[in-house]
């Protein structure tokens, strides 16, 4: 049975267990029909031309794990930002782990989507926001149909959340192959501030397919920093779709660090619905072997006087494949837009490839749009300069890679996270240097 058929029959069984009167039931039904009609995207779809899913879809994934698994904190501590106090919403094989989590309802809600879906007091929020940003493409629809568990974060107006919030999905490998579909809903009220870190981590080398969807709503003057740390094992694949709706004067920044995993597809979508929005999309990708990382971004400027900044850096070794699909749309009414897009790539090996395609659809006439893309090798002259000062070849290479990625790291606001990312890069490059940048 194909994965598609398996998912559809699983859905039918799952539907029997659901409250058919629930306010999102119609959304679910529509979503599964959507998926049934379109199926998984293939390379024939323009947006998936460089990212074939077929091999990955062949594994016999379990959709609902039979038993729930527990993890001991000490064994997974390294995946948390353990040197700072944080809120935590943690799932193990798709099931909420109250033991590893630290949720709150004091002044803000940091909890589970499943409880938000089932309790009346959250009904107005669910009604107003759930599935109001997500698109209806087949992958997102699939997640919507199965939407059951994930993080629910609601920050009321004027609240500055001091502690970062960590959303972590662990996969234990207790199933031969597992598919997980987390669904996060994040609403940040007027003038509220929040920092969120999202991570998907497998603890065993089993095929894992995560189809994650996150909806984020930034109300007026909201300020959001969102960090995605993608450093999974070589058997784990991730399709991550994030939809961000911004109201006026809001500021949202998403940093994506892609260092590990088998195949990663990031669909990162911004919709600027009010004036003076600021959107930042930054990423560092460092991959090797046969790893594949695809960044498909969309910034839809729907209002005047807004800005967007995209800055993606990639370093590809061995037969690694990178894709950068950066789409910027500017509606006719969206005058005085400043849209910046930069994508720089270094190919370490001549077998590595990068497919970069900026797409600009501009219907307003008074806009500033710039985009640049470079593909190159590490600068030989710079390498000799460093080596002539006594820095070994490997270290000099590493130093240049750090330097290359540095301006993306610069804007990481949580110092401990920045150190952690620096550490991951050092591990990835295989050197430890006694410097910080």
């Amino acid at each position, binding site marked *: 049975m194909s994965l598609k058929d398996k998912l559809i029959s699983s859905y039918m069984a799952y539907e029997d267990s659901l409250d058919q009167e629930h306010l999102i039931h119609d959304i679910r039904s529509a979503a599964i029909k959507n998926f049934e009609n379109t199926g998984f995207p293939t390379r024939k779809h323009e947006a998936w031309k460089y990212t074939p899913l077929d091999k990955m879809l062949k594994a016999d994934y379990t959709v609902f794990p039979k038993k729930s698994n527990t993890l001991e904190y000490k064994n997974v501590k390294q995946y948390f930002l353990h040197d700072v106090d944080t809120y935590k919403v943690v799932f193990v094989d798709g099931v909420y782990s109250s033991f590893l989590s630290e949720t709150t309802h004091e002044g803000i809600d940091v909890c589970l989507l499943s409880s938000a879906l089932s309790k009346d007091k959250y009904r107005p929020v669910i009604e107003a926001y759930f599935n109001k940003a997500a698109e209806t493409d087949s992958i997102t629809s699939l997640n919507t149909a199965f939407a059951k568990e994930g993080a629910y974060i609601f920050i009321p107006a004027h609240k500055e959340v001091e502690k970062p919030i960590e959303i972590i999905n662990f996969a234990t490998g207790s199933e031969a192959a597992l598919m997980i579909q987390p669904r996060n809903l994040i609403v940040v009220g007027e003038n509220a501030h929040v920092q969120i870190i999202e991570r998907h981590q497998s603890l065993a080398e089993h095929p894992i397919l995560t189809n994650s969807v996150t909806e984020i709503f930034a109300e007026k003057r909201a300020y959001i920093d969102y960090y995605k740390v993608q450093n999974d094992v070589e058997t784990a694949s991730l399709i991550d779709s994030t939809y961000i709706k911004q109201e006026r004067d809001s500021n949202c920044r998403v940093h994506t660090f892609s260092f590990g995993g088998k195949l990663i597809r990031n669909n990162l979508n911004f919709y600027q619905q009010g004036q003076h929005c600021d959107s930042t999309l930054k990423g560092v990708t460092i991959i090797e072997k046969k790893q594949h990382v695809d960044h498909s971004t969309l910034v839809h400027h729907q209002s005047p006087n807004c800005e967007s900044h995209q800055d993606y850096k990639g370093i590809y070794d061995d037969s690694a494949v990178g894709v950068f699909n950066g789409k910027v749309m500017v509606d006719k009414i969206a005058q005085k837009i400043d849209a910046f897009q930069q994508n720089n790539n270094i190919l370490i090996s001549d077998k590595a490839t990068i497919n970069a395609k900026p797409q600009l659809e501009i219907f307003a006439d008074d806009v500033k749009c710039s985009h640049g893309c470079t593909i190159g090798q590490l*600068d*030989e*002259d710079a390498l000799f*300069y460093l080596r002539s000062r*006594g820095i070994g070849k490997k270290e000099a290479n590493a130093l240049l890679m750090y330097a290359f990625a540095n301006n993306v790291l610069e804007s990481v606001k949580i110092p401990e996270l920045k150190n952690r990312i620096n550490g991951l890069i050092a591990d990835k490059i295989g050197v430890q240097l006694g410097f910080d*940048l």
Partner: protein
Amino acid sequence: MLQIENLHASVEDKDILKGIDLQIGAGEVHAIMGPNGSGKSTLASVIAGNEDYEMTEGNLLLEGEDISELDPEERAHHGVFLSFQYPVEIPGVSVTNFVKTAINETRKAQGMEEMPAAEMLKKIREKAALLEIDRKFLSRSLNEGFSGGEKKRNEIFQMAMLEPKLAILDETDSGLDIDALRIVANGVNKLRSENNAVLVITHYQRLLDYIVPDKVHVLMDGKIVKSGDKDLALKLEEKGYDWIKEEVKTA
């Protein structure tokens, strides 16, 4: 200190150095002058181990040890330092972090512990003061957006930090204003001792007023065609290279 015998080198199969002989003793300063394109920077690159250049013949010894097969970093660990004619800009790496890394990597290679942070800081302050470099300057990205003169001064700052045995200064004077020239030359002189040597590549006598050479060599078309004392530099300044070309022709 440095012993070069019959050194030939080529780049992309093009012969550039065609048999160089040069001996520099400990405590000495030698100057190399010569027309554009004669091979001065190539010689500096070959000594420092730039892999773009192939040494096809000859010997290259530092303190009696053959360094011709060593990687650039290994040569640096042996005490070779090249002040680049065109220092490379490296955005994202600060001067301070770069210098710290260079010193500690060299110490590691020599089997020493990393330099304690306080000692490092003291040394950085001391050498920055010697070269009259502003502290703010040291936190900037290496050479990025530096003026020509700032780049050269920064090269000599690195030299002061690394305390090499053999310093090769490739046109360090070009781009320096008159005051900076004096400061940089003074910095170089402070580092001179009986245990190290300096090879100065320059087009102008001016620098040699400050860093007085024991010997001056003229490089033309990949060969040293004339050597003399510091007066040779004065003569070149006055008369140019034509008379040497004539001498070479008639010889």
